[in-house]
């Protein structure tokens, strides 16, 4: 599966350096938007896109990824190590 979109994050108070949305896995359930409407939106293909990778704090981002019913949101730390899903 190569249909992934990467969003770099550069918040000083954050351990998370990158958000990845797997567009093949994403089904547009929009639970990420329910957790953080500042970070995500749906596009017209009904896939989640990141509007602002720096909008939410780490706890909120983690919750948004955990809420996804298809584990389509992956979080990486600033050294590139995957934080979620474990």
């Amino acid at each position, binding site marked *: 599966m190569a249909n992934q979109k990467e969003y770099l994050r550069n918040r000083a108070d954050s351990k998370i350096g990158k958000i990845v949305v797997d567009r093949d896995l994403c*089904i547009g*359930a929009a639970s990420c938007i329910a957790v953080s409407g500042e970070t995500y939106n749906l596009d017209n293909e009904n896939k989640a896109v990141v509007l602002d990778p720096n909008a939410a704090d780490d706890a909120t981002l983690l919750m948004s990824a955990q809420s996804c*019913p298809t584990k389509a949101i992956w979080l990486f730390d600033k050294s590139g190590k995957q934080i979620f899903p474990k």
Partner: protein
Amino acid sequence: MDKSKYVIIGGGAAGVAAAEAIRQIDQNGSLTIVSDEKHALYSRVMLSKPNFFLGKIPFDQVYLKGDDWYRENRINFLGGQTASSVDGVNKIISLTTGEKLPYEKLLLAIGVRARTLNVPGADKSGVHYLRTLEDGKKIMADLKTGKTAVVVGGGFISFEMADLLKLAGLDTTIILREAYFWEPILDEASGLMIENSITKNGLKIIKQAEIAEINGADSVTGVTLKNGRQLSSDLVLCGIGVINQVDWLKSAGLAVNKGILANEYLETNLPAVWVAGDIAEYKDVLLAENVQMGNWVNAREQGRIAGLNMASDQKHQFKFVSFYTTQGLGLTIAFVGDVAPGRDRLIVPRGAPALNSYARLIIVGRELVGATLINRTAELTTIAKLIENNVDVSDHHAALADPDFNLKKLLT
């Protein structure tokens, strides 16, 4: 059994979100989840997605929590166990095994069941519903050998099944009792957009028809409609709605209507008993009415709020615009807020079926309460915000009806 500080009946999205929220506040209070399914939390919404069904996504991707999560969070998971009664005075749950489970605080996140077809032959092998992982596995097995399929119902299960069956290469006919697809939630114009995409993709639809009988010996070989017409079919997939199982709770004195009644804090009428998820018929503060919402985001968010209320002294209000979306056969469909028809609702159409982009904005009084969107899902978040912020749209009906007008302008 030992007393648990927190008992959650239901191991789905709402029950697990509640457990997560409880553990944010109270790391050590004893917590038991009773689930009549033996599995750790899995993704109920993935069950109807073609990529999952057709094996393009590894099967194990359906599990959202592993056994380690329950262990690390000190959750006593009673999988494959069914609660049979609640004693709200002495605060004891009885299980069907006869065991007693005392609680301090109880969450009912029991979900709903698939409505079953009540016709002769409905018990034959090859007749399917889609609610649980076990249901999904049975359909997956039958898809491998089936050549023809009948889908019963005109809602989102049958829409997603239609897409899936087409991709799986089965000759498929959809049977609708209604006059058009998704009646009465959608209008006829929206329903026809969906029907056009279904038939364009080579599937057949028979409207205003009902199944009289399922034919075959032990396994399905076809169906007979009430008008006598016969169709041959290797499998029958039913998406004909859900039923609320609340009768077993009435003896506890729990107030129920269709679902379990709750206020805006998701408290039931019984002390120390909360409700969350599909079964909750709660007071919606944005809509100022009692509603029941059956979707993933609503279950997660209600579970979270109920969990916070169970574990903290502060009361958290459930205030949330719910939504869900689906896609397939070249269409994306989204429902936002309250889309139930009737009463004093004014519908403002936005876009047009001929443009293959059509929304209906649902207004009560001066405010939006809901919307249905076909091929306009990018507007979902803005519309949810307009509902949540109680924006007065009474002077903006012309703008709402203009498909090129940017709805975000109404937010400022």
